[in-house]
């Protein structure tokens, strides 16, 4: 079931792995930090409970989508998950393993995002050129947002006030509150393939087809260009304070500074890599100044940017890392590979 005997690093003592059929397309923790889900290109969702972390045989498998599961987000309730698939369905998987269809589209549901805080909760999903915004329960469709071309990424800002979508020739920023119909269009020619927003709302960043990043300072729309990558950037993650943006796409982890005036005209910081393998995924710890990075050779490491100290999480997996995420409390780190290996590590003390 598992090839963990050949895996080295934290995974040996503090984690577990399991291999399933199919490419792991995404992974995420639930809001209560108790569950961790992996989605596969076979349409399955595998959910590990924290209490059963060391017993991967007990991780439950749910056949949610007919076709690939393309997108995953934590549900707005504490314990469930939201998934999108190429069967055009937006689904909720609750803690009891029950599957609810929240939406159905003719197109693939490529992206799902959720926001929840004390006051508001939203669910957003992207399918073709359309983003649908639903209430936290997923029962009411609040807005149908049309874009000029297919949406390639969606993200809520930290407060859930705005929802941004990347597409050809730029990005669109929408307000979530029902009364506002207006859209702010940020233009930059080319194919934008993914999106991230600064935690304090200072900048919106997109990945581009042409091996670079583009960004806009949200205060004045000023353009920010970040280039020099040997390949496409697939993964971006802001540090919890927004000081750094970590990115994949090179054989090192590339970190852009978002302090002291921003990244304009500054060289990025390069954190250690895995001796030549391309970095494919990055994730900042939500609670500490630590970063996890996954590579094309299947390695996952944690790096402390301040000291550049490296801690191996899992070495020797083989297939490229295709999914990587921390739980909100920063105590669980999960990852998945293109050939179906799922790994989960408990980082909490004791």
């Amino acid at each position: 079931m598992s090839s963990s005997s050949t895996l080295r690093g934290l995974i040996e003592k503090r984690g577990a792995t399991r291999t399933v059929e199919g490419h792991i397309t995404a992974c995420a923790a639930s809001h209560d930090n108790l569950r961790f889900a992996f989605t596969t290109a076979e349409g399955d969702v595998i959910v590990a409970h924290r209490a059963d972390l060391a017993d991967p045989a007990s991780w439950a498998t749910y056949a949610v989508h007919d076709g690939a599961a393309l997108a995953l987000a934590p549900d707005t309730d504490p314990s469930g998950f939201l998934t999108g698939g190429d069967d055009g369905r937006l689904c909720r998987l609750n803690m009891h393993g029950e599957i609810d269809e929240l939406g159905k589209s003719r197109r693939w549901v490529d992206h799902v995002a959720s926001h929840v805080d004390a006051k508001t909760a939203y669910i957003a999903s992207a399918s073709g050129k359309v983003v649908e915004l639903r209430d936290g329960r997923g029962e009411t469709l609040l807005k149908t947002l049309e874009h000029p071309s297919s949406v390639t990424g969606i993200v809520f800002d930290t407060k859930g006030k705005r929802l941004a979508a990347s597409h050809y020739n730029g990005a669109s920023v929408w307000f979530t509150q029902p009364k506002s119909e207006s859209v702010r269009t940020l233009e930059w020619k080319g194919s934008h393939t993914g999106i991230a927003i600064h935690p304090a709302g200072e900048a919106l960043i997109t990945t581009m087809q042409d091996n670079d990043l583009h960004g806009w300072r949200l205060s004045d729309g000023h353009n920010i260009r970040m280039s020099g990558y040997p390949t496409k950037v697939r993964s971006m993650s802001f540090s919890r304070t927004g000081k750094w943006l970590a990115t994949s796409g090179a054989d090192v982890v590339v970190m852009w500074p978002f302090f002291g005036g921003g990244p304009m005209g500054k060289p990025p910081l390069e954190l250690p890599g895995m001796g030549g393998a391309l970095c494919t995924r990055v994730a900042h710890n939500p609670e500490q100044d630590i970063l996890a990075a996954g590579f094309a050779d299947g390695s996952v490491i944690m790096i402390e940017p301040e000291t550049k100290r490296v801690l191996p999480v899992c070495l020797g997996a083989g297939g490229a890392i295709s999914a990587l995420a921390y739980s909100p409390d920063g105590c669980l780190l999960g990852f998945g590979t293109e050939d179906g290996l799922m790994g989960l590590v408990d980082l909490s003390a004791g």
Partner: protein
Amino acid sequence: MSDTPLSSEPANALVPVTVLTGFLGAGKTTLLNHILTAEHGRKYAVVINEFGELGVDNDLVVDADEEVFEMNNGCICCTVRGDLIRILGSLMKRRNKFDGIIIETTGLADPAPVAQTFFADEDVRAKTRLDAVVTVVDAYNIEQTLKESPEARQQIAFADVIILNKTDLVDEARLKSVEDTLRGINALAPIHKAQKGNVKLTDVMDVGGFDLQRILASTPDFLENTHHHHEEDLTSVSLTLKTPLDAGKFQMWIGALLQEKGADILRSKGILNFEGQPDRFAFQAVHMMADGNAIGPWKEGEERISRLVFIGRNLNRPQLRRGFESCAVA
């Protein structure tokens, strides 16, 4: 011209992709359904556009939007299909579910962005190979269509394989005239006659049209066919050279040529004899985007002749010939 190998994976690990083009009403969807329902034991993923004429009978059908955008890579004519990059990327996560991919384009589509997608995107290149651009032509209407629509001419010029459909609707003489017209635009692509899309599958699928190996085997004289230069618009120019080529000189020349004339040159293909190389070198380009790789040794007793074809507009044959000849080893 790329110095990097096409992919680290062996060629047969790459998923073959067939692009089906053809003018409105030519019979693309009929041909597609014929391919899908034939007894071949193969599974295909099919990418269609939402304005398809007929339904497609297949398990894995993906709607595409034909979203074309310009690359910022300095090629003025380098447009690619962003929707295909996304769709192919996602399909490749389910590599075990199908044996090949068929992409149907809309009747009015320029095939260049589709073909260029297979050169321009690193992920697409790493996992798929463009097997052939198959253009379906309606024998009954094509002469009229060519008068009215530059796109139809473009699609014929682009083809690796031409399916001349609806041949039952025209007589022998007219069929011959249509074939001559097609040859005048594209001297390279084999023409297969069909009625209601009833072609042999081996003629359209897995033909290796882009790597030239099988096309050369099936039409060994294609490059000698240099008669039809009366088409004022799109034409073919075929060149041969017995003297071995200097690889460095050839790369310099073709690189500069495509940079300068790439907008006019739709397709270039060649089998080249580089000095000191035991293997044949297959060269191909779509507009400015070029690629090449060794495709195995020359056959025993085979004459080592370098052959190069250009399909495009405003082609200056003497100039191209002189350029090609200047690449010969001194």
